[in-house]
């Protein structure tokens, strides 16, 4: 997704499309800059910016950044890289809780896989509108994803 609007060519004859960095040294003095109301930062003088600076970056999400970095360089095994410091999966036995109420769950509905606390909660599961059991499962990432 080319989110870099700065690098965009301005349409001929369209003053409005002048790249923002070019006018960053002009604009109103700071005194006029209000902090409440609609305050366009682009209309304020920002003399500290390098007008030559043009970024050629492409916007990447974290997943892409990580994937690229992970394979792009040789990392020592014990180097604390971003992807390496994730807490490991839990080894402790996982207690099960009712998906509806959050109370301890003794049972699992074989039809929907929803965990439940008591027969009474089970009655509720039976009357759930279709699809909402998936929403309950999605709470703990156990929903069925249709691809």
């Amino acid at each position, binding site marked *: 997704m080319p989110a870099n609007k700065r690098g965009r060519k301005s349409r001929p004859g369209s003053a409005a499309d002048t790249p923002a960095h070019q006018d960053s040294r002009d604009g109103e003095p700071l005194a006029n800059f209000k902090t409440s109301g609609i305050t366009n930062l*682009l209309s304020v003088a920002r003399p500290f910016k390098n007008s030559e600076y043009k970024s050629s970056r492409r916007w990447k999400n974290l997943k892409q*950044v990580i994937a690229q970095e992970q394979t792009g360089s040789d990392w020592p095994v014990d180097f604390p890289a971003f992807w390496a410091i994730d807490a490991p999966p839990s080894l402790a036995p996982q207690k099960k809780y009712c998906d509806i109420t959050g109370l301890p769950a003794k049972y699992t509905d074989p039809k929907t896989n929803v965990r439940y606390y008591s027969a009474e909660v089970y009655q509720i599961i039976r009357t759930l509108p279709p699809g909402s059991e998936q929403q309950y499962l999605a709470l703990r990432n156990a929903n069925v994803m249709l691809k």
Partner: protein
Amino acid sequence: MAMAQGDIYEIPDGPSDPSPAMPSFDFTNMGQGGTPIVIDNGSSMCRAGWASENNPRLEFESVVARYRNRKISSGPILLVGDNVNSDPMAKPSIRSAFDGGVVTNFDAMEGILDYVFTLLGCVDDKIDQPIVMTETACTPYTSRKNMSELLFECYDVPSVTYGIDSVWSYYKNMGSFAADGLIFGSGTSASHIIPIYDSRAQIDLCKRINLGGLSITEYMLKLMQLKYPAFPMKITEWQSQHLIDKFAYVAEDYEKELSCYLATENLQQKDVIVQFPFPMPSLDERTEEEIERTAERRREQAKKMQEIAAKKRQEKVDMRAKELEELSEIRDSKNEMDAETFAERLKDAGLDDEKDLEDAIASAQQVVIRAQNKELGIEPEEKEAPSFPLVDIPDDELDDEQKQEKRKQAFLKASHEARERARIEKEKEKARQEELARQDEERRLNHFDDWLADLKAKRDTVIARMEDRKAHRKELNDRRSHASQVRMRNIADLAAAETANPTGNKRRRRGDQDDDFGAEDADWNIYRDISKDDEAEENEEDEAELETYNKQLVKHAPDYLESLDRAARAKIENTTMYRFTDGCQPAILEKPAAPQKLDNAAIVAQTAREYQLHLNIERIRVPETIFRPGLVGLDQAGLLETIDGILRQTSGRLSLINNVFITGGGFSTIPGMLERLKRDIQSIAPAGTPIKVRRATDPLRDAWRGAAQWCTNEVEAFAASRVSKQDYLEQGGEYLREHGASNRYYAAPKRDSPFPT
């Protein structure tokens, strides 16, 4: 946090002041002499200011909106921070620079830095102050590289120092890195556990649990939406966050607290009622007196109407009387004139002949007499039984005309007798009913208890019948149910009987050739059984019957229906689900047995209840996720297990757990966190180990303050930590000079990728 029972918390729509005032600008003395600019670049809040000051000058939501709005400006518009909320048009364009706690969108970052430097009053043609900036633990190199590129090339800063926010918060609270400790830094998108020893953050041992303020806000929101699927309001993320801030707490012993959460006493204490704004229901605001007055007025009106009607009736009667007079006069005049003139006169009066005249006189007379009788209160006398003299005379004694008359009389007699029979039958039935009522009344007076028991039983029977019908209807909706199958079989049988060929061999084979269907009335019920139309009629009958029973009960056993309702309510109130969704409030019955009369206050309360949420188990269920990430389906060790793992890796440095430090805006501000963490750590530490858990003085701002103090106090370390422009150019953008609060740097050799990027 603690609320008395029955208190209702009214939730606001959003922050009370959506755009807090910015500090005033007096920068003339700032920025001179290279005072560092400190930026705590958090993923939800950005804080920035001068290192020489105690507090950040700027504190704003870390978002930008780049969009167009022709009404305001011909060119593009850039709003940053809380300004994004000032124009509704900007809403779809609001972006964060962060993805999962890491800066990835550097266009947005540039907007944020522009905002910071502008508001800090930088007016030179470059930023001439060292930058001190926080970054997340183990920031990806790409992110740091882009950040350095932006800082050095766009703003031409002299140097930049990167450090970890929670570690600087630790510095602020401890005064140095000399003391060993364990940081639990919990942000918006993730929480980190970082051990401190040997006077620096041991990033190699750092662990991250991918849960933060955002994840619990979302969790709370989803829980509420699922708990109240028909809630009439949209619950916003802000409100969800607000509920967490206000009411969530960490259970000291989750299992134990959970097991008794819905018990009455506990629930009364811990159930929170959250009231959303609701529209006022339209009410009858009149007082009793006013209602009485209105009724009086209505009665008077009815009386007036009756009078008018009577007057009209009288007028009609008078008219007929006058008519009668005229007609009589015509009749009387017959003798005074010849036939021709008389006929002429009849014609003038609209009459055909003399017979017509007689009929008109008779009908007018009848009307007038009836009216007179009514006025005098005389009942119309019983018509004497008509006689039918010809019926009993044999035919041969009559002539033709008489025979015809006899036939007519026979017919009239038959119908008259039938009417009489029906009347007598009706009277008998009425007498029987009266007798029954009398017996009932007698029984009530003499054997009240039996009578009452019977009445209750009868009422129960009607209710049971209605329930059965309802259940049956419900079952019919399911094609596979027994009721549906029976119905289908009946239809098939009936159809087979109708289409069986005239020889009936199909039936003969089964041996019941003589079809006696219809011999008994009950046979026809089969058609009612297979009909799927709603049994509104039967239901109505039953409702009416129930109503009479209820009326009697209200009259003679006033408490009985109330007690039934109480029992029904208690039954509902004691269910887990009701307690979960409605707390300790009295249940509202769908069909209360006792007659209800709602006053205005009750109507308002009922509407208000539709706009209420109950927060109970969620109060501990939501924060518990950091201890059991499995609750939200995250396959990671919980906080305690992670701490345990880190302790093992440090070969049992117990000094760490004597100084557990929690900071950040995610989980660390939730009440009960310190106690729970201490209790949990106790369970894994050797007996007698000193354990201390403390919270940052200001978990939100101490990271900024720590960074500012650190670069002011630790002059040498600060000087050594500054990545200069030359470093940037020579070593690359990801380059980092390590210090006590920093990440690790390792010049990772580039791998020759088979896929050129």
